[in-house]
């Protein structure tokens, strides 16, 4: 096991933020590989495992793209514990122990902090979790497992991630000039990977 990789997965260590995003990138590619290989599995697509993989994929993608809600996957920064964050809770992050204690606070709107479906309230996420494709000529009374045509799922990610490159460059320009050199190796390594995804 690579200790450096594991620490990066937890957002720790020197250059933590950079390592963390590299790790998110790596997790995204591993997850896509799992979804793809699940196609040939005996016994059909396992809904539970694919759901979990898609949740990891969504978290990693959010962190990598710097989208809101990505911080759900990050451990909190050191310092005093934050007050109950209604915004964060509404984005679908699970309630923290400190928030559970302060559940009766009037500042938080009546919306229950235990909301489950983050996909509904986070339109910025873009990633639906599962993209069902009905098989053609499926007779109506026969229920489809709706775990979907995985090839189409991959192509959705392909379009999502080929856009990644464009966004990356934009993000790099927005940072300090000194940081652009750091981003270059990342962009270079992205290229063959995103080509592979589109090829799926």
């Amino acid at each position, binding site marked *: 096991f690579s200790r450096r990789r594991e620490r990066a997965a937890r957002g720790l260590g020197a250059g933590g933020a950079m390592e963390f995003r590299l*790790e998110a990138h790596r997790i995204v590619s591993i997850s896509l590989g799992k979804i793809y290989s699940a196609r040939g599995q005996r016994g059909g697509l396992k809904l539970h495992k694919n759901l979990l993989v898609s949740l990891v994929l969504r978290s990693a993608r959010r962190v990598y793209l710097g989208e809101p809600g990505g911080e759900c996957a990050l451990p*909190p920064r050191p310092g005093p514990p934050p007050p109950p964050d209604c915004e964060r809770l509404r984005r679908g992050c699970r309630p923290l122990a400190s928030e559970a204690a302060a559940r009766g606070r009037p500042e938080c709107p009546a919306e229950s902090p235990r909301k489950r*479906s983050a996909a509904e309230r986070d339109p910025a996420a873009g990633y639906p979790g599962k993209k069902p494709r009905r098989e053609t000529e499926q007779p109506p009374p026969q229920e489809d497992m709706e775990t979907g045509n995985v090839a189409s799922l991959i192509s959705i990610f392909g379009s999502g991630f080929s856009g990644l490159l464009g966004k990356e460059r934009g993000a790099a320009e927005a940072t300090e000039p000194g940081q652009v050199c750091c981003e270059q190796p990342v962009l270079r390594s992205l290229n063959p990977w995103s080509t592979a995804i589109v090829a799926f």
Partner: protein
Amino acid sequence: MKCFSRYLPYIFRPPNTILSCSCHTEADIISTVEFNHTGELLATGDKGGRVVIFQREQESKNQPHRRGEYNVYSTFQSHEPEFDYLKSLEIEEKINKIRWLPQQNAAYFLLSTNDKTVKLWKVSERDKRPEGYNLKDEDGRLRDPSMITMLRVPVLRPMDLMVEATPRRVFANAHTYHINSISVNSDYETYMSADDLRINLWNFEITNQSFNIVDIKPANMEELTEVITAAEFHPHHCNTFVYSSSKGTIRLCDMRASALCDRHSKFFEEPEDPSNRSFFSEIISSISDVKFSHSGRYIMTRDYLTVKVWDLNMENRPIETYQVHDYLRSKLCSLYENDCIFDKFECVWNGSDSVIMTGSYNNFFRMFDRNTKRDVTLEASRENSKPRAILKPRKVCVGGKRRKDEISVDSLDFSKKILHTAWHPSENIIAVAATNNLYIFQDKVN
């Protein structure tokens, strides 16, 4: 905990396995283990769709130091691989769960299930056979009626004991998703089967229909965020059951409240610990097993790293949390990569609900004494398990200097996982499935 430091191991292998552990076939991997209600019988199911039942020998006066050993009683093919032509899907024959019915006559009944079909099997003994038919001879060939000059009454004569298993009911075509649990109700007339999104209630006598009692399938599958991972009936209250989810929550439902139990009576969830958050927090909080205590007062849940005990009267957090292998918390990324993070470990109570047991990697399994708060790690392996040997507690070294006899985290064999264990309902006898081998350990007898 003193009784658990001493064990008499017996090793049983299902038939047709190759002797050496390293080249067993995939079909021999044990996928479920279950004692019946008296502990006299122990059933195992494997990936090849076979069920093997072991029976405990009667204790003999000649060898009092050998308490009843378990020997093979019956073996049968429960499920075969099937192909769903409409959906182009192969249906695995792997036995996901076995549950016994309480014994009501001389025969034994059990439920076995694969991903799609539940079957009720009757296991009965035959030790007599009829002889002296008039119209056919002993081979079964018909006799020429004109040759029969006298009539006789057939008689039953003793024969070698034969144990036969017959499928009495087949409960099919009720699950679109993969069945993960079955549970017999305390009324002994009904049982439930649960898949990823639905739970169905069956009557044992009726195979062509079932009641759907839980349905969490969203109208739009894109909004799917959680699945059902396990379900169980309350041991005494036939109207109550629980089901666990991939989000680490448990719902308790009362079937008297409504026909469709989509609204829970109780909702058990522990708030997340922010310091442990990572990309994999959701996966490791997914509950892989839920079990009521024998008393019916508590439920135990297993997630990837912990076992938790919940009081039915307290929904906001468990009353006890036990770390099974917390040293894996820093390895989650690698465990995600090699798929180990998706392993579904089960957990069991002992007969008095004072000790709980669950499996881990490297053929280790763990026991936690709820009263003394002591725990032990034991290993199920051929090298350490000579007959009448005593199991030595094992220890995993989590960093720093490794002592002799300790094993470091990086040396653990993650292909050797103990997912399925069972505890005798009243005695200190445990069954541990390690890949294709079944280990049965007993409390040492003086």
